[in-house]
């Protein structure tokens, strides 16, 4: 045996257990090289930063993939190419999102101050009121957004929550329940402007062609809110364990008290989250309000009478009106946009917080 093996030993080469790999510093070096090359050529030929970035990206994609191909083989090269592409989508996607945030904050924060919240736009030409000399502000828009959103919430939440209770507790798998589930799906897809047209058609048919009021806006917003509330509540009610309901029934508690005292409190956190998210969604709606709530320059607290200004419509009309004072109007629009974004973001954070605080403690 040993005689047979002896002569083979010198011929056998050690098989490498690891395929050759690019070193860990390869990606940053390749990125630096392609940036440097593109920057050099770009500066010589006078391209803008965007052009340099695009060329650097192409250089990196081709160069790095080629390098990997030469050392690691085709499959690893493809892997690295797609990793590059996927991380690139991340960078590309971040550009507009960061830009929106940055522009809103940087252009909007300058005008924010006590006057901006305390004044409306009556008699304001350019920067200040022609009579009092006070700077123009968004009080009327804040009032409108608050009143219209509150009214819409007051209409949408009871309907939405009760409908979800029907779907989960009463109408399981009946034809009526399935129809409602389907219709809620349809309602989710209603374009907001169509909701506005609906409110307009309904209310002008009843009150006459010239009817404009905040209430119309609330009706449209409620149409948008209801499906969101139903969906959120439905999901939450389904999560409530049946044991809780059965325990309650076993104690002789009637069904409606079980729902009110056991099911709803358990699901409260999720429902509150869903409602808050729905409020945040409609607080930023513009199109329906533009159609039915109109616009005005003074604060109007009465939802049922007279036109109402809202923050989104204020932003829209400030920017699109143009004219002699376009610059001042645009500055106010950015300020209002910042306020609106802060309101909506706070509502979203509040929704998360509510969800955390009231999350059902099922002990699981």
């Amino acid at each position, binding site marked *: 045996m040993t005689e047979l093996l002896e002569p083979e030993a010198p011929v056998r080469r050690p098989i490498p257990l690891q395929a050759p790999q690019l070193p860990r510093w390869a990606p940053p070096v390749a990125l630096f090289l392609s940036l440097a090359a593109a920057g050099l050529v770009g500066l010589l030929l006078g391209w803008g930063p965007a052009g340099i970035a695009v060329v650097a990206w192409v250089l990196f994609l081709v160069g790095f993939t080629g390098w990997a191909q030469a050392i690691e083989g085709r499959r690893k090269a493809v892997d690295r190419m797609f990793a590059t592409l996927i991380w690139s989508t991340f960078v590309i996607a971040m550009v507009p999102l960061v830009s929106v945030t940055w522009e809103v904050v940087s252009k909007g924060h300058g005008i924010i101050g006590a006057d901006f919240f305390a004044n409306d736009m009556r008699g304001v030409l350019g920067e200040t009121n022609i009579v009092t000399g006070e700077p123009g502000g968004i009080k009327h828009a804040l009032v409108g957004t608050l009143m219209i959103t509150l009214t819409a919430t007051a209409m949408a939440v009871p309907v939405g929550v009760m409908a979800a209770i029907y779907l989960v507790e009463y109408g399981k798998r009946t034809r009526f329940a399935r129809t409602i589930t389907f219709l809620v799906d349809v309602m989710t897809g209603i374009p907001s402007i169509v909701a506005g047209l609906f409110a307009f058609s309904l209310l002008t048919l009843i009150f006459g062609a010239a009817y404009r009021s905040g209430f119309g806006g609330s009706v449209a917003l409620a149409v948008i809110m209801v499906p969101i509330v139903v969906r959120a509540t439905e999901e939450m009610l389904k999560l409530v364990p049946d044991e809780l309901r059965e325990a309650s029934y076993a104690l002789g508690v009637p069904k409606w008290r079980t729902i009110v005292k056991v099911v709803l409190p358990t699901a409260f956190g999720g429902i509150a989250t869903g409602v808050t998210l729905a409020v945040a969604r409609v607080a930023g709606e513009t199109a329906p309000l533009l159609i039915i709530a109109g616009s005005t320059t003074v604060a109007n607290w009465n939802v049922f009478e007279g036109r109402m200004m809202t923050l989104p419509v204020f932003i829209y009309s400030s920017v699109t009106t143009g004219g002699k004072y376009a610059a001042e109007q645009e500055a106010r629009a950015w300020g209002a946009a910042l306020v609106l974004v802060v309101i909506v973001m706070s*509502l979203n954070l509040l929704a998360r917080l509510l969800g955390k605080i009231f999350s059902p403690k099922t002990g699981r």
Partner: protein
Amino acid sequence: MTDTTTDQPPRLDDSGSRATRAGDSIFSGLASAAGLTILLALAGVALFLVIEGAPAFTASGESAYGKDNIVVYVWPLLYGTLLAAVLAMVIVTPLAVGLALVISHYAPRRVGTYLGYLIDLLAAVPSVVYGLWGRVVLAPALLPLYLWLSDNLGWIPFFDGGESGPTHGRTIFTAGIVLAVMALPIVTAICREVFIQTPRIHEEAALALGATKWEMIRMTVFPYARSGVISAVLLGLGRALGETMAVAMVLSGAGIITIDLIGTQNPSTIAANIALNFGNASGSKINTLIFSGLVLFVVSFAVNFVGRWIASRGEVKG
């Protein structure tokens, strides 16, 4: 039945019975009424749009904004709506899939979670803010790109730019980009959800067989997530179709049909057209606009319906 306890009637429905039953029936009645309200509301939406839109069928001349009939008026708007929305989806699909993969598979888990939160927050930014950004910031920034495109790639009909070339950035292409930015968070969120739900055991099996990360994603994640991604894109498309304010603020539209994406004259969209013209409209022109809204409703309903259908089919299969 020989049980002696039958002497005493079961005390299940005793003194409280009437109140209990009344409470139950009131409560269930309320719940059903809420369901009925939803049904009526949606029927109302359709009914009132039809009532107010129907007179526009015979509209011509003045009431159809100078067009011969309603079809000639609505068709270019519908074309613009579809063009902008499809453009947005062409841009957003690869970005959203990539971004969702970063969150679900490429980034470290903790970073991925926070990225997910961030994207969800961005979905909440109101459309009017995106419109403001698109009009004031993005459109001027894109004009050099359009000039470059029409100079160098002008032979492609999409980048023709018209006779005098692009003169402003408020084109249908810009509108498509703004719509894409707005749809990105929603589409990404749904894609992420389905990517995360890929069975871990499939992924690990692929890796154990020596697949690279990309091969693992291609072989296990994509086949599993296909229907989810398609329905995400369709739902995003539904959103983009109905989006009003961003387009109304960004696009400088005229009711024309062209495949030139960066020209001075652009097709407008139904929703933006309603928002821009409703304030000045009166009488039969309002009927015309409401009719175009009805068309938009039908189209976006169809898209959403197909999206949900595909999603539910995927659920059954998964």
